[in-house]
């Protein structure tokens, strides 16, 4: 390869790198540009192959969340069990076994659901919430309960979602749920 071709090749590669990282920078930057077309092209280029997010622990977590479940046996309801804490304890016992995925799965879904109910005060739901966040959380809990507590058939259960902050604790009690 002669010197000119080498230089040309280097310039092309440099331009590609520059374009790639500028696109990533614009995608991740906290203040999005107010240019709809550019944002559309930017997302088209980035998602899903180059998708990334670097707002790690921003804002710092300041709310402890708990996910209580109780289900009906032949006699009565079981005691409330905090399944998120249960998974966190398992994960702490051995960080190498991949329990991180289970913790993140339950924790993220719980955060999404609690965020979706942020404007609500603590309350009792006689009918289950109809939002998508709850649909995902409910799916995960039902599968979790079946697998971890080895339950078959129809399961009647209830949920208690709790978030405890520095100044305020909120709780949502969701009654009369059934998993078929």
């Amino acid at each position, binding site marked *: 390869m002669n010197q000119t071709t*080498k230089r040309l090749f280097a310039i092309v590669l440099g331009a590609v*790198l520059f374009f790639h*990282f500028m696109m990533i920078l614009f995608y991740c930057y906290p203040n999005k540009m107010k240019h709809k077309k550019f944002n559309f092209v930017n997302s088209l280029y980035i998602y899903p*192959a180059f998708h*990334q997010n670097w707002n790690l622990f921003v*804002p710092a977590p*300041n709310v402890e969340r708990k996910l209580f479940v109780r289900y009906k046996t032949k006699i009565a309801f079981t005691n409330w069990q905090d399944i998120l804490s249960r998974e966190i304890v398992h994960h702490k016992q051995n960080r190498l076994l991949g329990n991180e995925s*289970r913790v993140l799965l339950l924790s993220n879904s719980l955060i999404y659901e609690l965020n979706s109910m942020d404007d609500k005060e603590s309350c009792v739901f006689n009918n289950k919430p109809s939002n998508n966040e709850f649909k995902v959380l409910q799916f995960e809990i039902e599968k979790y309960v079946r697998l971890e507590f080895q339950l078959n058939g129809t399961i009647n259960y209830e949920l208690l979602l709790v978030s405890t902050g520095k100044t305020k604790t909120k709780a949502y009690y969701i009654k009369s749920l059934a998993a078929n």
Partner: protein
Amino acid sequence: MVYLFQFKALFSEQRFIYHHVNHINPVVDSAFFLNNHYSVLLALLFIFSVGILSIIGLLRKSNYISNLTLWLLVMNLTSFLYPTLTAGDYLLNQLLFFNCFFMPQASKNSVLNDMKTALHNTALLAIKLQVCLAYFLAGYFKVIDDSWMNGDAIYQTFQIPEFSNALLVSIPYSITVVLTYFTIAYQLSFAFLVWFRPFKIYLFSFGIMQHLLIAFGMGLFQFGVIMCICYILFLKYDNRFQADFADGADK
């Protein structure tokens, strides 16, 4: 290995992962093939293929196609496990993408060899830039956040059981404040200082300690380990590849 340990919870018929088929366009769908055509057998095939291709890569027998396949397979697995991902998984995807352009096997054609060398070096530079960008953005996000700028962030995080343990929760507030500001300074300066040899040892020492603490203390194991692995790329190991290319061209 982690996927196999948690296979039942993540990939089996009893999995907890909420599965939603979603076709967008053929290019995007290539990252969602496992998601859109899910079966337990296909998931197993993907996991074992990733294992085999990784071993091939470690033995330096990989080529562009095997590296590209590895990237696509991992991207499919991570797309399927979307709710469980951390920044480490996204970074791993980027590392594997640039890994597609690494070419440990030298060619006998000198022009082709020059191009391969240029691609290899560009990919290596790209990974370094990606890591620097990640640190800089992570630092920048912290600078514009109140909880980090008032020094409370790490103390606050250690009070949440999910990201803490008995040791971390007992660290005095004053030390966590110092750690908070030090973390911001570290993340902002990494992108600039890592290119200067005298700073590397200090940056990597603090970085490795920080990421091991994140991995084992805070429980974000994959993220912590992947970030530590990134430091290897800033060492001088790549000179060995350049030497190999030179040898190949001479033959």
